[in-house]
């Protein structure tokens, strides 16, 4: 005999209130990060100690800028999802948990938009 209500059955969702999207997006961004973080390590390696003009002109190159924006979007999505899991694992008071999840999302968006803005300013701006 099933203990689930008919409504829960048709929704097909457990207490998490969602399906496999979280898991899948974490994996998708993990694979993307594999390439994009390798790119970042290479970029920082080649730019370490370089003078200002070299760094500015390198970051303004279209393919570098596009890869950087992709990296920021992928990493920020990935770290937000990862931290969400950690918060759900360790924070048990409902209010604290909701507050932490909220701050986590704000932090990820703030970091992401700031980085993207900086990269685009170097490409389009002065």
């Amino acid at each position: 005999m099933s203990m689930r209500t008919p409504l829960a059955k048709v929704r097909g969702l457990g207490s998490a209130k969602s399906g496999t999207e979280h898991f899948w997006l974490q994996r998708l961004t993990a694979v993307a990060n594999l390439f994009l973080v390798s790119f970042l390590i290479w970029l920082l390696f080649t730019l370490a100690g370089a003078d200002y003009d070299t760094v500015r002109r390198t970051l303004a190159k279209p393919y570098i800028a596009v890869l950087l924006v992709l990296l920021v979007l992928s990493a920020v999505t990935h770290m937000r999802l990862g931290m969400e899991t950690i918060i759900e694992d360790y924070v048990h008071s409902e209010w604290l948990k909701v507050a932490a999840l909220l701050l986590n999302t704000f932090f990820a968006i703030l970091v992401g938009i700031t980085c993207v803005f900086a990269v685009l300013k170097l490409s389009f701006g002065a």
Partner: protein
Amino acid sequence: MAEVRHTIERPLSPHLGIYRPLINMVMSIVHRITGVANYVGALLIAAWLVAVAMGPDAYATANAVFGHPLGKLVLVGYSWSVIHHMLGGIRHLIWDTGRGLEIGAVNALCWTTILGSLALTVALWLAGIAARGGL
């Protein structure tokens, strides 16, 4: 009435305080810890990008901070954290396909993560020192 207390030595469900640390459980928590370190460390990348976007003065300041011995120490730690998490991530992705789940393979993958990340981090910084003729 005499109270007789029988303490029966039943097997307890094992928990962290009892287990001898095993490489797979250590790597499990280190993947989480490096994930959090990378999360906080994203601020370093953001600060660097913003400094470049702000101009030569801000860039010089950022370079001075990152170039300070303590700054370098943080960068070495951060680079290890990212590399370790990357290798650990590959391990997780392999496991997600249902492969490498026999205990021998699990332990081999875990040792590869820690030893590989240390080796790659050292190699990265040595290559940097060699390329620039100094730290």
